[in-house]
């Protein structure tokens, strides 16, 4: 009967358990404390950095404000150049179209007058020899690349055939109708 009662062993177990609980809670507390302190330090460090950056920003802003005239000049020149660039890239250059059309004419054909607009280019051309017009129609026009050379031209009309007996020249009116795509 006496052997079955073992009070000493139970007390030792309880003490061990208490020590374990104490140790675990102490570790948890230490970890929490460590993280709290670390985070607080980090936040303090960040706040310090924010203050430094704010003063730096204020200095730069006041520096820019003090250079008011220089800032306005810089902004003005940038605004002007940006607008100028827009105009340069979008303005219609009829000389390019005219040069393209004139390059198609055989050298023997002379240009008497031109009427160029964004919609069409009308040329009055003359030549003492009728065969020059044949060269224009049969060789020059046919040899043109529809994608490269004729991409801006929608239709070509030839009319107003005329013979000038004084100068012994044949003249004709050529109308090159331009594509809508190139008209701004």
């Amino acid at each position, binding site marked *: 009967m006496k052997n079955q009662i073992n009070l000493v062993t139970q007390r030792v177990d309880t003490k061990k358990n208490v020590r374990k609980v104490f140790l675990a*809670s*102490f570790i948890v507390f230490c970890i929490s404390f460590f993280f709290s302190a670390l*985070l607080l330090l980090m936040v303090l460090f960040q706040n310090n950095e924010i203050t430094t950056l704010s003063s730096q920003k204020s200095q730069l802003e006041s520096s820019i404000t003090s250079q008011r005239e220089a800032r306005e000049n810089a902004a003005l020149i940038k605004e002007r*150049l940006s607008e100028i*660039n827009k*105009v340069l890239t979008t303005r219609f250059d009829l000389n390019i179209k*005219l040069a393209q059309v004139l390059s198609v004419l055989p050298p023997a054909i002379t240009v008497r007058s031109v009427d160029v607009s964004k919609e069409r280019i009308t040329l009055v051309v003359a030549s003492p020899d009728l065969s020059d017009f044949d060269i224009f129609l049969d060789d020059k026009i046919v040899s043109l690349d529809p994608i490269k050379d004729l991409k801006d031209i929608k239709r070509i009309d030839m009319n107003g055939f005329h013979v000038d007996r004084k100068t012994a020249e044949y003249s004709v009116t050529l109308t090159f109708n331009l594509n809508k795509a190139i008209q701004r």
Partner: protein
Amino acid sequence: MKKKLDTKELVQKYRIYLVPSALLGLSIFMLFFVILPQFTALSDNSRTIDDQKRVIEDLSKSINAINEVNGPQIAENLTVANLALPTTKDVILIYTSLTALAERSEVQIKNFSVRVGNFYTKQVKGAPPPPAATVGSSASLKIQLVISAPNFNSVTNFSKNIYENLPLAEVNTLQANEKSGTLEINFFFKPVDIAALSRQTFISGLTPVEKSTLEKITQWNNLSN
């Protein structure tokens, strides 16, 4: 009396758990009232720091850009830019420029007309707005010019030279024969919004495109002088 004894016994029995419980309680308190709020503060502060750094970087770039643009050439560059794209309808400037160009192209100006534009009354409800001659956000002034020239090439050269002359212009129509020509030219201008320019805090330096545009118009200006 018995109850009192029970409480005492209870305290006596669990006294050893008091310190661990207090430590755990403190840990939980720190978790909810220190650690978690600091995480939010950290993330907010990081965002603020990033924003501040970005603003500082932009401001520094602006100062560099201002110093770069405001070099010794600033007055000249501004003059050229304003000459290329005047702020108003400057008819005298256009006329002077065209006469100088005509001289260079060996043609003579016979007639110079300005099409100021239509008059518009208060817009009628539902009616379409009046048409505006604009390219991008620039407006233009229409000029009609009659020139006399020694030959057809002089007329076309004059028309070509208009594109390399200041103020910037585009030829709308060209009618030419061997001795004369009639041109309808749009001269561009754009008023300056001083208030908007003054409000601008961030200014970037000149881009390569803007630099090349400046070089181009300076070259054209030198040609005409």
